[in-house]
């Protein structure tokens, strides 16, 4: 069945769509009440975030917009040391969208939400003219323990820079789909609960966490260096990139350090805890390729320097220009 403007009318067609696809998959005691807003328990510091997802194509190797819209918001909560609890979701469907595709996307969202330990407690659907596409907005709430203080301002000279795995997989996947380049690269879209929980429960001195999404590693680290007024030094040959993504980049003249990811984070941790932190991330789900890639120094405020494979020093800037639109 195809979506028509009637599915956004708020009437019977809307009700059927919600009942048959959304409510069926997202069922939990809060959502099932179908009230105007969700009332949930909570007595801790809360983290709140929101993100909109417009990825094109909506289904791609290794994931889809449904998995992506849960992971994106969950990971943003995790990066402040929060334990993700609740999500809301707003669907903007274009006329002509196939309900079977919507069903698959919603099932994928529900499964990812279960994996990430969050409940989808509120939602909305609108239909607009168009040609069968869809956008999803998710907002999320997480609880933060009193003693947890993780922020972009806390990179400290002496700290060690760890990334949780290979760079560029998601970006290469989306670009490969759009350009029709045959390959077996898969998106890395994943919720990073397990590795963040491991760091927090083991009382690792984590100063900063950031998910490495649009703009890529270089943009994220340059921004951290600016916010924390420090220098970050990297070693190029320690940055993990899969051979296939490396070749894909070579073919298209791209650099993995500027490519977006959807299931990777950078952790800036105190030097004395670095080895333990690396071990914890590596033994967590989605963290097996984690690596120490550099260190924080007090040389100059806001600088990101990389020692290249032949020993030269390269200064990295934030991504300039457009990058790849509609990657998430």
């Amino acid at each position: 069945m195809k979506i028509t403007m009637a599915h956004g009318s708020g009437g019977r067609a809307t009700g059927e769509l919600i009942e048959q696809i959304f409510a069926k998959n997202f069922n939990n005691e809060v959502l099932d009440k179908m009230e105007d807003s969700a009332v949930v328990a909570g007595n801790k510091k809360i983290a709140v975030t929101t993100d909109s997802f417009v990825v094109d194509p909506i289904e791609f190797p290794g994931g889809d917009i449904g998995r992506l819209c849960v992971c994106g918001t969950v990971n943003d909560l995790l990066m402040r040391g929060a334990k993700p609890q609740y999500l809301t979701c707003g669907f903007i469907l274009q006329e002509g969208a196939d309900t079977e595709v919507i069903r698959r996307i919603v099932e994928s969202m529900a499964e990812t939400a279960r994996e990430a330990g969050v409940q989808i407690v509120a939602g909305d659907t609108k239909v607009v003219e168009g040609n069968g596409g869809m956008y999803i907005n998710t907002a999320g709430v997480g609880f933060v323990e009193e003693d947890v203080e993780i922020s972009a301002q806390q990179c400290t000279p002496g700290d060690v820079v760890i990334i949780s795995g290979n760079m560029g997989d998601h970006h290469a996947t989306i670009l490969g789909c759009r350009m029709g380049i045959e390959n077996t690269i898969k998106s890395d879209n994943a919720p990073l609960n397990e590795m963040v929980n491991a760091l927090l429960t083991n009382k690792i001195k984590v100063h900063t966490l950031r998910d490495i999404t649009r703009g890529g590693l270089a943009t994220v680290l340059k921004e951290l260096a600016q916010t924390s007024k420090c220098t970050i030094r990297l070693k190029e040959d320690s940055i993990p990139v899969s051979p296939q993504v490396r070749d894909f980049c070579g073919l298209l003249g791209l650099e993995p350090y500027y490519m977006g990811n959807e299931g990777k984070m950078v952790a800036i941790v105190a030097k004395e805890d670095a080895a333990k932190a690396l071990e914890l991330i590596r033994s967590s789900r989605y963290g097996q390729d984690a690596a120490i890639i550099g260190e924080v120094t007090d040389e100059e405020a806001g600088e990101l320097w990389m020692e290249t494979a032949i020993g030269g020093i390269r200064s990295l800037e934030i991504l300039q220009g457009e990058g790849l639109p509609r990657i998430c």
Partner: protein
Amino acid sequence: MNLETIKKYLKEYDGEEVALMEVCGSHTGAISKFGIPTLLSKKIRLISGPGCPVCVTPSAYIDRLIELCKEPDTCVATFGDLMRVPGSEKNLSLAKGEGGNVRMVYSPMELLTLAKENPTTNYIFAAVGFETTTPVYALLLESLIRENIKNVKLLTALKTMPAAINWLCASGAPITGFIAPGHVSVITGSDIFKPLADKYGIPFAVAGFQGEEILEALYGLVKCQGSGKVMNFYPKVVTAEGNTVAQKKVATYFEESSAVWRGMGAIEGSGLLLRKEYAEFDAGSADLNEDKKLNKACRCDQVLMGKISPTECPLFRKVCNPMNPQGACMVSEEGSCHQYLVNNRR
């Protein structure tokens, strides 16, 4: 020779000052990417040359494309990096926003399919490039003729390197050696630089695009200062005589002409135009000579000639940046100003 020995030599070099120009934009990119300037002695200066085809395209050419894209039943097809190159008033990206019919393609050969699928649209391909790209345009013409496709024309801005290098040397640019363009040399062969090396008594080194390959070429150039030697450090793909099949195809459809280089003016024998017998495929490429600056303070011309470093331009980073390029060197990823900015070269 071993890499460490080369690196040690280049870092500790303490002889006469040398100024080496990498002509090719891809080399400018690779030099930044591998952090090569930090591996050199202060006595070795690198200069970025005019080897980015987009950067040297004059404003009149862009203006003509903008006019064409607004004509009825006409579509201008182009590589993406030409979209933001400034014309005298605006660029193709803005013209597209105003309703101009502009289409980005990855290969000129896509025109064959497009032209057949849309027989009532006249396609104009923005055929910009050096010796490396021209053979593809020759192949496109060959297919257009073979398949009797009449709704594709080329607006050419084709350039060739040797006459431009000659012009640079003759104009007194302070250059004591050239990293010769690797991709161009695949087509032309390394021998093409011999007459220039002899005439000016300066060395040329054909180089690949990996860090080690560039360091090897720099080492060769420093060692051979003052000699008219042509060295090939990219022998896996470059031969002395080049790709003669490609050279013949190009010669079938194109002939030597004068060409206008942005900021440098007209250089005799530095371009290619379609031969008269193929005039029906030409969208009016000759005489697009005007070259207005968008911003009078822009010093792209002196950057292209190696007379100043991009950072010495008063507009650099402040007014002129990749989001708001004032001159062509900031537009293309191969442009020297773009490279200096995104890599914080000083």
